[in-house]
């Protein structure tokens, strides 16, 4: 089921932060939203996840306007992992992840065996099986991010929207996370849309990329066609060069600066 943004315009108060944004998130693909700080990546994700109502244009899921869908029905189909996670309250990993079952179970009924199974699967996927009973605030930054991702996985949604999922993760857990997201796209036909700053991770894992700058789309398409020195320079305002990854051949992006010297 496609999640589609059609020429949406988003604003906070008087300030328009996203102009004419288009996107088609197809099952089985990973789409990366790229761009400098303030480019509109998070805003686009908030609009896609039905948290921010666009001023113009519309977001549709399977052809239906998402604002016409019942909240919980949307929650069963689209999961969102926000960037900030100021959980200043003692909650266990189990408790947080089970909340991901709410779109299925509702706000009153006790969690079922099916919910517990989803909890275990989600924890296994993020490598946190032994953390079920731990308090969230006793975890490291990376473990916490994975627990919050497990919450979204337990939601069992076909569309997964993530705002900077790789932030605060060490290299190994970044790679494992993106492996997992790519696997969810391939094997479970999930549509994954995420924002990130690491262009190399985008190059390695995203099927499609959207380059944003100051609320406008600079380019979008297959990742390797978007991550070119010219477009990146236009977007980020610095010179870059690309070299092929020695193993898989995708473009690795390297910044160029006069301070770095030459060999």
């Amino acid at each position, binding site marked *: 089921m496609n999640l589609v943004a059609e020429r949406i315009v988003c604003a906070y108060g008087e300030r328009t932060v996203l102009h004419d944004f288009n996107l088609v998130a197809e099952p089985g693909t990973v789409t990366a939203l790229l761009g400098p700080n303030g480019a509109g990546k998070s805003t686009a994700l908030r609009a896609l996840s039905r948290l921010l109502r666009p001023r113009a244009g519309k977001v549709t899921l399977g052809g239906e306007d998402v604002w016409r869908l019942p*909240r919980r029905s*949307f929650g069963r189909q689209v999961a969102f992992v926000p960037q900030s996670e100021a959980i200043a309250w*003692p*909650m*266990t990993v189990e408790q947080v992840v089970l*909340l*991901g079952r709410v*779109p299925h179970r509702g706000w009153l009924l006790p969690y079922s065996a099916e919910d517990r199974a989803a909890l275990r699967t989600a924890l296994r996927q993020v490598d946190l099986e032994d953390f079920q009973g731990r308090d969230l605030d006793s975890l490291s930054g990376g473990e916490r991010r994975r627990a919050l991702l497990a919450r979204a996985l337990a939601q069992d949604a076909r569309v997964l929207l993530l705002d900077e999922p790789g932030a605060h993760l060490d290299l190994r857990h970044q790679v494992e996370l993106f492996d997992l997201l790519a696997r969810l796209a391939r094997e479970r036909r999930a549509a994954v849309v995420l924002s990130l700053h690491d262009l190399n991770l985008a190059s390695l894992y995203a099927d499609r990329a959207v380059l944003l700058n100051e609320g406008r789309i600079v380019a979008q398409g297959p990742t390797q066609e978007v991550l070119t020195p010219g477009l990146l320079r236009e977007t980020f305002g610095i010179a870059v060069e690309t070299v092929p990854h020695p193993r898989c051949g995708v473009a690795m992006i390297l910044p160029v600066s006069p301070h770095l010297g030459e060999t």
Partner: protein
Amino acid sequence: MSRRRFAILLLGLGAVVALAAAFSLTVGSADIPAGRTLSILTSPGPSLERTILFDLRLPRVLLALCVGAGLAGAGTAYQGLFLNPLADPFVIGASSGAALGATVSILLDLGALPFAAFLGSLGAVGLVYLLGGSGGGGASPLSLLLAGAAVSTIVGSLVSLLMILNDQSLGVIFNWLLGGFSTATWRELGYGAPMVGVGLVLLWLLSRPLDALALGDDTASSLGLSVVGFRFAIVLAATITTAAAVATAGIIGFVGLVAPHAARLIAGGRNSRLLPVSCLFGALLLLLADAAARGLASPQEIPVSIVTSLVGGPFFLYLLRRRSA
């Protein structure tokens, strides 16, 4: 904690509360031997001792239990809603509104003090909610807290002004403000308890949304929660509980702040478990505080809120030390 262990914990706490209630029945200025309490209560026929026990002490004990549970439950909900460990049942104006209602009732001799206090409490919180939500997008926790502080201060000064201008009633008003159960009767219990009960049941039904709100508005909303609507429902239920407690017992501090913290230490952060444990703690705390208020300086009575603050303050500091340790 497994479901079974939690059930045992609840039962155990309930038994402790029942014991404390029974003990509290034996405390007072009339010298009634503890061993005979039960036989007096069950023996037929009127007697002075039976009247003291049945018409004075029993409603008082039950009301303390009920108010303690109510304040603790509302405190738990507000702490969860505002994600702020300093929140208590009075944080968005419930107590100042009740004080104004009670003061007006006393000054105008309306003879409907609990009712006026209840309305005043609801009115103040309603005002805070309107002011806090006037920025658009519904009332955010922070704007509610700020509006609550402002309204509490303004209403509090109004109460002080009224007290100064009518100094012949100063004592009566001051006495009410300090809170207590010395005037508790079956009648007060009759309208206080059901309101507190309704509010607490509503809060308990809202415990999963309250859990979800702790993940932040965006996540809660993406799970299908109508954040604005549920936040309103939680404030409403907590306010009914608080207003009913305050209307029948005056302003009793610290119970609603300390009990949730103590409960969180053993029950964790899941609100469906935290709420009942917190209520039992609150009931226990206030039962003991009231017994102390009656017994320590007998026949003189100490206002119960002085006891709760004197005991609750240090206890709170102890909890903070434990938390940071």
